[in-house]
């Protein structure tokens, strides 16, 4: 039997790809980007979260780790957990005692955002932020560009690339493409199947979203009105978004292709913002795709 098609060879190749060496600064750059975004995102919502914590038990529908609760936490306890998450996220972003603060920030972010999503509405833009925290916290993400590295007297971290800095990035990127693929599968497995790509459902989705906004006194995007009649355009948009969602797991195996995919996914979210005024903030900021980029090049400049 030829060696070409043995499972052992496949495992070997997958392993070589998964443990592709990367410089410490690339992983550190992703940690800083993720940490800075998480910090900004939570700090901006601190008062809104405090309001949600006081919104009563009727709308409490716990998700994720929050399911251990049968009723909401006392509001002040929930508030303090948000504050602890902010502190841990700041420490993780700066790489201070990262071995402790990295996993702690990841765990607290998971709790805080799960609790935030436990009031009848799941915000799907939060998922990746939490999953990326889990990927980054598992690796030596603060070996460069961190307080820890500065204390050790090696600000830029060890020279050269190493597999230990590569795999957390692969994990973050693979998680990203997987979530998009799941969204694509949900559409194909949904009531419309592949007919979803006809664009009609997307067109109506845009309209339904616009009507809901208008019914609550928030104007829909002017672009939604302008484009609504253009069925062909919606077909192209539906095909494009389906391609982005389903092709990610293939693109991930080639670094250049993966970067192109990340660019396309980023554009997809800007398109959603323009037509539907829906903000996937983590994706729009570009922070969600940091693990695809050679961030060390920016830092070197």
């Amino acid at each position, binding site marked *: 039997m030829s060696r070409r098609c043995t499972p052992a060879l496949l495992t070997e190749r997958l392993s070589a790809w998964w443990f592709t060496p990367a410089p410490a600064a690339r992983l550190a750059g992703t940690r800083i980007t993720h940490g800075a975004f998480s910090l900004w995102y939570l700090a901006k919502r601190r008062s*809104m979260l405090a309001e949600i914590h006081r*919104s009563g038990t009727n709308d409490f529908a716990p998700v994720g780790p929050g399911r251990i609760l049968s009723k909401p936490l006392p509001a002040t306890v929930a508030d303090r957990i948000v504050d602890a998450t902010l502190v841990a996220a700041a420490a993780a972003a700066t790489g201070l005692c990262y071995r402790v603060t990295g996993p702690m920030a990841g765990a607290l972010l998971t709790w805080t955002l799960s609790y935030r999503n436990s009031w009848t*509405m799941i915000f799907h833009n939060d998922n990746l932020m939490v999953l990326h925290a889990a990927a980054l916290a598992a690796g030596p993400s603060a070996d460069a560009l961190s307080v820890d590295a500065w204390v050790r007297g090696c600000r830029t971290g060890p020279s050269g690339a190493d597999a*230990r800095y590569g795999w957390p990035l692969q994990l973050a990127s693979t998680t990203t493409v997987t*979530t998009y693929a799941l969204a694509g*599968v949900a559409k194909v497995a949904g009531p419309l199947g592949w007919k979803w790509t006809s664009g009609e459902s997307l067109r109506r989705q845009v309209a339904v979203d616009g*009507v809901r906004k208008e019914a*609550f006194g928030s104007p829909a995007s002017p672009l939604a009105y302008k484009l*609504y009649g253009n069925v062909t355009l919606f077909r192209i948009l539906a095909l494009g978004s389906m391609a982005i969602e389903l092709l990610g797991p293939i693109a991930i195996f080639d670094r250049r292709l993966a970067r192109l995919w990340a660019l396309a996914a980023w554009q997809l979210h800007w398109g959603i913002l323009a037509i539907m005024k829906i903000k996937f903030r983590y994706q729009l900021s570009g922070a969600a795709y940091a693990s695809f980029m050679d961030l060390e090049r920016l830092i070197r400049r």
Partner: protein
Amino acid sequence: MTPLTRRLAATYSLALLGAVITPVRQNWRPKTRKDGFPLSYYPMFSARRPATTTVYSLVGVAADRTRVRLPYRIAGTGGLNQVRRQINRCVAEGRTEELCQRVARELIARNQQQRSLFSEIVSVDLVASKFRLDDCFAGDGLVGEETVLESMTCVDTQP
């Protein structure tokens, strides 16, 4: 990396990716599909959308019977879609009176603080509005058939 750390990294990676993929099973459950967080099957935009849609929303009524659509912020916090879902849940669970009372109280409080744009409003209606999407987006704007589900006065009776 030592063989042990490689193995640990591979195990952790497989566990996380496995957990991320697991919710895909929800797609093949006949009726009881359940979304979660942070592990989701990402059902957004996948539902079949008919040519009409019904929205439960709040309308303020002035003394001269003028009707104003109330912004979601008066009914709750956390964003438009979260508040909309909470209103849907109130309707489904028959808590419409409680919702209107809460909104009326909020309007009275805002009027007392003199920061309300809705000082003319004397009552709050919870309405079910049925919209034809083509009419709204290619025609005359937001015009639908409206049914009042609950109505509540919101005049401050305190001296």
